[in-house]
């Protein structure tokens, strides 16, 4: 029987905990570390893989400044509206009234504000070139997400721009739901707020204008 799926060559057998690459930065600091790598070795392909607590809370400064400098690496931002790694605390992306371990009565937006839309926020900056929000809730979305991530890496390899792909996903464990319910909840609650789509694609715009 032929193989139907092979692990990509880029994935090694190294055991890593939350960072799938070859370096671990502290909570939120991955874009600064990626900047360090990219500035001294622009030929290397560099990406950061960050969650919503990491990127939108403690690492807000690092991501904004890296994006604004147009560092030519790729950020994959996984948004599941909760701190997953540490056990389900409230994240800056937690939805209004959503219950978490640190918002047991639901997120009170009068007290802590509305969830942060990172893709929208970064798109307000002039420098970053490619920003898209995708999701992996269903196969039709996964195909689009894959395309977006591929495009982000191509832009990096062409040394074009900073690229940012937000991936709206679920966290059944910390949401206290079955996987099926969590997909439904995400579609009903997250997607209307975190609208999918391309927020910015400067390389494509420039290509169009050139034509």
């Amino acid at each position, binding site marked *: 029987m032929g193989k139907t799926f092979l692990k990509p060559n880029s994935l090694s057998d*190294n055991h890593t905990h939350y960072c799938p690459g070859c370096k671990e*930065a502290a909570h939120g600091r991955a874009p*600064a570390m*990626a900047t*360090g790598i990219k500035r001294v070795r622009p030929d*290397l392909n560099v990406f950061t893989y960050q969650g919503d607590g990491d990127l939108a809370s403690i690492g807000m400064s690092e991501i904004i400044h890296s994006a604004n400098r147009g560092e030519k690496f790729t950020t994959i931002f996984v948004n599941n509206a909760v701190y997953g790694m540490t056990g389900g605390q409230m994240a800056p992306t937690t939805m209004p009234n959503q219950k978490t371990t640190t918002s047991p009565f639901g997120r009170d937006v009068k007290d802590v504000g509305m969830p942060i839309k990172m893709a929208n926020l970064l798109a307000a900056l002039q420098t970053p070139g490619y920003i898209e929000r995708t999701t992996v809730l269903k196969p039709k979305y996964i195909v689009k997400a894959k395309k977006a991530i591929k495009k982000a890496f191509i832009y990096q390899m062409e040394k074009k721009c900073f690229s940012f792909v937000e991936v709206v996903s679920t966290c059944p464990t910390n949401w206290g739901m079955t996987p099926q319910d969590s997909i439904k909840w995400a579609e009903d609650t997250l997607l209307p707020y975190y609208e999918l789509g391309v927020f910015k694609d400067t390389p494509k715009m420039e290509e169009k204008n050139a034509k």
Partner: protein
Amino acid sequence: MAKVLMKGNEAIGEAAIRAGCLNYFAYPITPQSEVAEYLAKRMPEVGGMFLQGESEVAVGYMLFGASACGERVFTTSSSPGISLMSEAISYIAAAQCPVVFVNIMRGGPGLGGILPSQADYSQSVKGGGHGDYKLLVMAPASVQEAVEMVTEAFVLAEKYRNPVMILGDGLIGQMMEPVEFPEKVAAKPSDKSEWATTGMDTRKSDKRNLVKTLFLDPEELNRHNLMLKEKYKKMEAEEVRYSTYNTDGDYKAVIASYGTMSRVCKTAIDMLKKEGIEVCMIRPQTLFPFPEVAIRKAVEKKSCKLAISIEMNMGQMVEDIQRSVSGIVPVKWYGKCGGEIPTPEETAEAVKKYLNNEE
């Protein structure tokens, strides 16, 4: 090469370039901003890289990233900035990356002041960041020595795969003195292919290098930390550096002092000598590893009644001296901690007072 008159901060920047370090990340802070200002102009001239990070927190990780892929890299900052970098310093030490840090100290705690101080002795020597780690800490006493130590710092950082801290008080950065730079690249780069994440296409082997600091398995973390400990022990055995002053005669006290303060002590010792009072000095050039043996031997002399730590802080080195003399003589402290540097006259007077109390 001919001598040039240069400010310590600028000389430190130039020394790093001469040592073959062409990557510099920094965030401005008084009293060392001249390093960034100097290198902002100088790095492009030599094909180097300078990036002003958005914060010292970010700069710490820029250094970590750059070093993890095998490039020589350094930064300069001052006390509050080093506090912000301390998180990254802990990671860098754990991941064994050879980054060189320069701390041109100012008075603390808090915002403190911007005048010379040595208040970050403990921060550098005992930790500062979290976890079990050590920095190799060097304390220059002149602009020339700062240049030499910067050069050596890159060699030592790579030899031990460990961050090195150059700890200078504000005056070392601000003072102008004649300096002579080494003609050529003075610190040969080491082979980093065994550990650095340089990219698979640049390496001959298929082995993947991984730079990490997370060891969730307690046995693995234990092994890792013991390996670090071995490294620190090796530093203690091989890298202690110090100089001595007036140790020949029958001195009554041993002064331990470093940086600018040690030069004031030198003049104070000369003044006391004229009055017939013999005092000697051990000047640690490395604060970790600490010249324990030298200090112990110095106080073992029969005539010696006393050891005095003279520093521009509240006496942070006293514990290390106490450890070194292990009760043979009492250990005192003299210094100022507000940014003012004691004069030789004041220092000599303080030493005399202690000696009179002993008799």
